[in-house]
């Protein structure tokens, strides 16, 4: 049976889940609770959860337990497949969860006031709770399947929150765009999970990554297997963290209300890719190819984001690219094997960026204060002769930055269009065969116009 520690562990993950279930069920039954009731529910759930978490942290620290697992049973057992639900509390999960709780409490308190009287108040908090559950599950996952489940919840809630203002076209359009990027990268994670099962017969991290406390650990996979799985993990992480070439979704995510931008794209969601790579550290380190690829992608992302961020003219995009720069560097650190550095960097960066996102609407106020304090204009560099003439290289780079690295256009042109063409070709073939076999002409369904899927 469960002992006390297990109950505490369960409460950490269970509190947000309970909140999500309650809010979600109320919405499904069309009994939308009042703002006050929702506020109370959020406070109670997060309060219980954080007390449990702090207790757990103290217990683990004082008992110098580097690692705790909470097995929730074998849900399905087949000869070659075993589905176990298992939560893992270790030096990687605990700091991340502590951070997630702190941010969720802060941003939750922020949103309770910020979203006041908004028609989608309830919807926002359902998504917010779903996101929290997703983050908890991802962070605490002890098996690859559990991780995937959490990963999906995060993706779904993010996409829905981007399209929060669904009465306008742009948020829906951009939400869909993000959703499709997530789909592509999630497919990589799913394939990785299947391959892991295929090669090692289990999805349990205890086996796959070793039982040693984080960051030590060894994987039983062979070099080739580790390379393939590692690269798939990298694709999954790239999608979620907006690494090159998926970075184009990041500014699009600013369509949602400010608190969701803050917690998702400034803070937790965008770092989940890095978290995945940290979790799969042994696999990444096992193969030098993967490590090199991680490093390279991180570096590319950092350079791209830095370059792009400098040309942005709106506060939220500028912050988004600043975020991405740091995420790129964190990924480089992971590639270099500096996992503790990466973790500390991640936590510090999350705190800084969330604060900046929440203050984004004060930009004018803050800037005014700052100019008064400094006694100079902050835009002096615009008038200085240094910038009067621009070299062709600079101008070319500027356009590249203003157009956000052409990443979206390239994806559309070189990935989406060819894929669509393949599908259209298949569609034509199918039609041809059915017509041929049935011997009569069929009505042609309307072609899906390409712009409904790809973008500009």
């Amino acid at each position, binding site marked *: 049976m469960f002992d006390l520690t297990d109950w505490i562990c369960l409460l950490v993950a269970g509190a947000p889940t309970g909140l999500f279930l309650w809010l979600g069920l109320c919405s499904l039954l069309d009994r939308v609770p009042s703002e006050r009731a929702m506020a109370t529910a959020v406070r109670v759930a997060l309060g219980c959860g954080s007390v449990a978490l702090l207790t757990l942290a103290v217990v683990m620290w004082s008992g110098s337990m580097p690692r705790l697992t909470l097995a929730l049973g074998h849900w399905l057992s087949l000869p070659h497949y075993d589905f176990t639900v298992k939560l893992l509390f270790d030096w990687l999960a605990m700091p991340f969860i502590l951070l997630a709780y*702190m941010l969720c409490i*802060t941003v939750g*308190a922020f949103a309770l*006031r*910020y979203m006041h*009287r908004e028609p989608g108040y309830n919807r926002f908090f359902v998504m917010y709770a779903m996101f929290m559950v997703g983050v908890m599950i991802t962070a605490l996952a002890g098996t690859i399947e559990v991780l995937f489940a959490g990963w999906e919840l995060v993706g779904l809630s993010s996409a829905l929150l981007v399209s929060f*203002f669904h009465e306008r076209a742009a948020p829906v359009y*951009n939400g869909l765009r993000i959703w499709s990027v997530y789909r592509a990268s999630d497919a990589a994670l799913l394939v990785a999970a299947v391959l892991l099962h295929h090669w090692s017969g289990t999805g349990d991290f205890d086996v796959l990554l070793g039982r040693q406390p984080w960051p030590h650990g060894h994987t039983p996979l062979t070099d080739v297997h580790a390379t393939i799985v590692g690269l798939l993990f990298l694709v999954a992480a790239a999608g979620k963290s907006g690494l090159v070439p998926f970075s184009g979704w990041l*500014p*699009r995510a600013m369509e949602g*209300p*400010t*608190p969701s931008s803050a917690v998702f794209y400034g803070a937790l969601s965008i770092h989940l890719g890095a978290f995945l790579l940290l979790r799969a550290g042994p696999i990444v380190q096992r193969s030098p190819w993967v490590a090199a690829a991680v490093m390279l992608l991180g570096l590319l992302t*950092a350079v791209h984001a*830095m370059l792009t*961020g400098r*040309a942005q*003219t*709106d*506060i939220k995009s*500028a*912050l988004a690219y*600043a975020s991405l*720069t740091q995420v790129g560097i964190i990924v480089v650190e992971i590639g270099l094997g500096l996992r503790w550095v990466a973790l*500390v*960097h991640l*936590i*510090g*960066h*999350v*705190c*800084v*960026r*969330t*604060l*900046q996102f*929440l203050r984004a*609407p*004060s930009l*004018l*106020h803050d*800037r005014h204060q*700052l*100019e*008064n*304090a*400094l006694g*100079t204009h902050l*835009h002096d560099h*615009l008038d200085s002769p240094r910038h009067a003439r*621009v070299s062709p290289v600079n*101008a*070319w780079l500027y*356009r590249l930055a*203003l*157009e956000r690295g052409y990443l979206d256009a390239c994806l559309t042109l070189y990935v989406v269009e060819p894929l669509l063409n393949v599908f259209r070709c298949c569609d034509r073939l199918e039609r041809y065969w059915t017509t041929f076999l049935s011997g009569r002409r069929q009505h042609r369904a309307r072609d899906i*116009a*390409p*712009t409904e899927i790809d973008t*500009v």
Partner: protein
Amino acid sequence: MESTNYQSLSTLPQPSEKPIDVREKSLHRAVENAVHLLPAQGPIGVFVHHNTLHALEHLSFHDAVQYAARLYGCEPYLTKEWYGDEYARGRIRKRDLVSVIQEDLADAADETVVLPTTRFDLRLAMVCFPIPTAPSVELRWFAANTDAFRRLRADAPDEARRRILGNTRQWVEAICTPPTSSFTERTGSGQRASSRSSLTRKSAKCEKRPERRVLSNVKAVSELLERLRKEYGTLDRWTGTAWETFTVRALWEVCRAGVRLSKLKETRPPARVRHRDLLLEATGEDSDMLVHPLLIRFCAAFVDQGFSYRPLPDRELGFFRAFCRLYGQKGGPPDAWRRGLSAELRRLDEGHVTPVQSLLESLDVLGVPQVEWDSFIAATLLAMRGWAGMVHQLEIRGDRAAIAVPQGSLLDLLAVQLILERFALAYIARRSLDFREPLSRLRRVMRAAWTPPAVRTPDERAFTVFQVAQLVGWSAAKLSQLTRDEWATLVREIEGFPEGEQRRILHLAYERRFRIQVFDALMANYHDTGVSPATLPSLRSMSSTPQRQRTARRFQAIFCIDEREESIRRHLEEVEPGVETFGVAGFFGVAMYYRGVGDLHAVPLCPVVMKPQHLVEEEVIEAEREVHRWRMEVRRALGHVTHGLHVSSRMGLLGALVAVALGVFAALPLVTRVLFPWLTSRVRRVAGRFMLSQHTRLRLERSFYTDACGDDNLLHHGFTVDEMAGIVERLLRDIGLTGRFSRVVFIIGHGSSSLNNPHESAHDCGACGGGHGGPNARAFALMANDPRVRAQLKTRGLDISAETIFVGAYHNSCDDALELFDQDLVWDTHMEDILAARRALTEACQRNAHERCRRFETAPLDLSPEAAQRHVEARAEDLAQTRPEYGHATNAVCVVGRRERTRGLFLDRRVFLVSYDPATDDATSTVLARILQAVTPVCTGINLEYYFSRVDPTGYGCGTKLPHNITALLGVMDGHASDLRTGLPWQMVEIHEPVRLLMIVESPPHVLHGILQRNDALRRLCDHQWMQLATLSPQSDDISVYTRNGFARYEPESPQLPVVMASIDWYRNRREHLGFARIGCKANIDRIFQTHHNREERVFNTFTYNV
């Protein structure tokens, strides 16, 4: 790669035969016309309220809103449902509607539409009830799933219902009973054919007559009759339900037949002028989705006020040239739709093609004939009107921005926009429609193939008639007797009063009810307060009455006219009945550039229409200079650190270093600011006091040595004594304070500060052009205290008592803090007076905060005044607060007159109070004329901006604040790439009752008439009904309303006001807009506050007032 000849010049139509400069001229004219329609909002840092439809002020208000509704696709009034709700809760009453419709129709009201319904009856019924409309598909749904075609409307008036049912029954029985027809005998045998023939026989007779009647068409009715008879048996066995079903169905069939018979054509909507609209309707693909993101990015980079780290290259070459250079480079974005763009731009750049030439080219390529240029260019610019408007504003008011843009930038923008549109349109047309002809033919081809958005079908039109018939009691029997011409009249009559007109009537009624409340309140106050002719000293001699002098006031306070200051004045008068308050435009006549200690810029503090000629600086006193210098150094160092941290956090490696080393510490401000806003505000306040010297002086006076900055722009350092005397004299004469000075006179400016609020400046003082009015108040007090000024004033006949001291103060309307200036200069003899007054002012601030809190849903209704003050303090500092205050959301009325006329009235923060004493004005009313000239634009600007932002929050306003994203330091976008959003956010206007400003002037009508004759701007506003004007007689309770035919005397409706002991008794536990009430005798408020928590106890139960 496909050829790009759709866009390039090779397929240009024949060169135009007209000389080029003529074309250029008409192009400039077209742009000129379109420019006026763009939003006129400048950079958001200094928010100036103005009429959103300023460009249409030459039209009457109602024409303008309807025209703008078509032009911008916005709402002219609130929705009919909204007015319906107001009607239901009694805010609009039937008598308002009756009166408004009668006035609107004048003599045409009594014309008969269908006996016995007059046009008046018809319109009244149409505005009182919702009239659903539905497309045909939905009608089918109605028929299948609702009772709409089986039962009469549940809300139909009883009389109409009785009449319809009765008439139909008589009609059927008349048809079916033996003398007319042998219907009943044949029913048994079920000969449907014969029964139909009986009706058709009847109709055959009708057809012999010259006019056709509907009945001939209603075969359906007889079929229906037959079917129901089968179901329910003979007529005598029919139940009420059966009758009702038949009645409704018959009515519906007759309406359908009637509308078809009337053969009225519907007017078709005009053809779309933009290619994009045509293409969007045909293919579902929006070329603006391709063009706008690119254009928005470039616009933002071009007008950026210094946000982005890397400025736009070649910006100084202008919009057009910079764009050509940047996007003309090779190796650019691979988007399919932009293929060939860079080559085209290189051609323009290298060929030195001017923007105007390029525009002409584009218009030719797009095949827009010259006659359509006006509408085409206007529609194109309006498609992205926020950015276009901002570029234009920076062009013409470069002085209001840190970085201006060169003249002609708007033209450049348009040229670039059209070039991009060419590519986007060609791309979409080619891909979706396989359109391979020259682009100039696209519009013609599309228009030929375009089906206009379905004109309403006859059934849809009949559905409206069917609804109306049920409301006014027209039965099938009656309608079936109408001739074609009568039907045409009927349909025309109903369709001639479309929803837009109904909403206009409802809006007028809505305004009327409020107007009457105001008038009645003013009249009642006149009778109740003893401000009656008997007690009023006769005019002219009043100000010098010795009686007045003897009952000298405890102190006097001069506030801004702002309607938000109404409540604090009222509370002050309740706390200290011996006080006298005044209202005057909040810059107090001191138009200046002001630079505070520690400020980088000097900001203009005066209405936007003025350009100050004086600079006033704040300085630290001599003794503190050294400390101050040290403080400034610390402040600068801290600023450098903060700025450095912020900048480096956005860098690469440096950012990593900062995040690793210091990142975690950011959690501290993050958590405390969000979770404990009030505590943070306290800490910040203490820290701020430490950082900035509190002992300062204004350098107010001009001296020979310091007046060096007046190089060429006539800007002087400070004021001369003459100028000061002029300012003081003018203000005191304006408000009529020329005698009876109390020992202390406060001058209280106001402003607002809040965090996380891009629209912060919109809450500031409008008379200071969106700045804080504190420095103006401080400067005025110093001027008025100056003995030389007083000596000079004495020679001009204005004797300020030597016992009187003026004290400047600043009221923060967001956190209700009050700050007194220059207290160290107060004479020792007056210390006690000031302390006592200060206590009263503080108490008034607290009560003011309490009254304001009733509007905030997050503030509990049972807050104590102290808790209310803490609540508003936290609100101002709360990062998560989207409603730090409600701003001008309650503005509605402006009263120009003596405070005695409004004192003691609970005006619910809805009234701009301008002090003016008709007794002290001269014979030609110069004072009144100049007051009106100054006050009207400010008040109507605020009022109309709120009106439009409330009426269409996303069209005229900028929608909800939550997704707002500050861009280029100039304005806000929704998300990462939207049009610049102008107007006010929803959170500022959500509680606003949109009514046009009602200005009431205490002056005889003939005087005001004279002023209107002399002041064109004011007359135009009144004549075109952008505001309402009325006069209040100085000697009696007479009120006259300005109409098209001059002033008309107002007849009171119910000049009875509820009386309460104190404001709190009236507003307690209520969140909504309140009616007016009179605050009774000297209020014993302490007692009330003690019993405050006992909710059961009410001093007066006076809720019968409103409904």
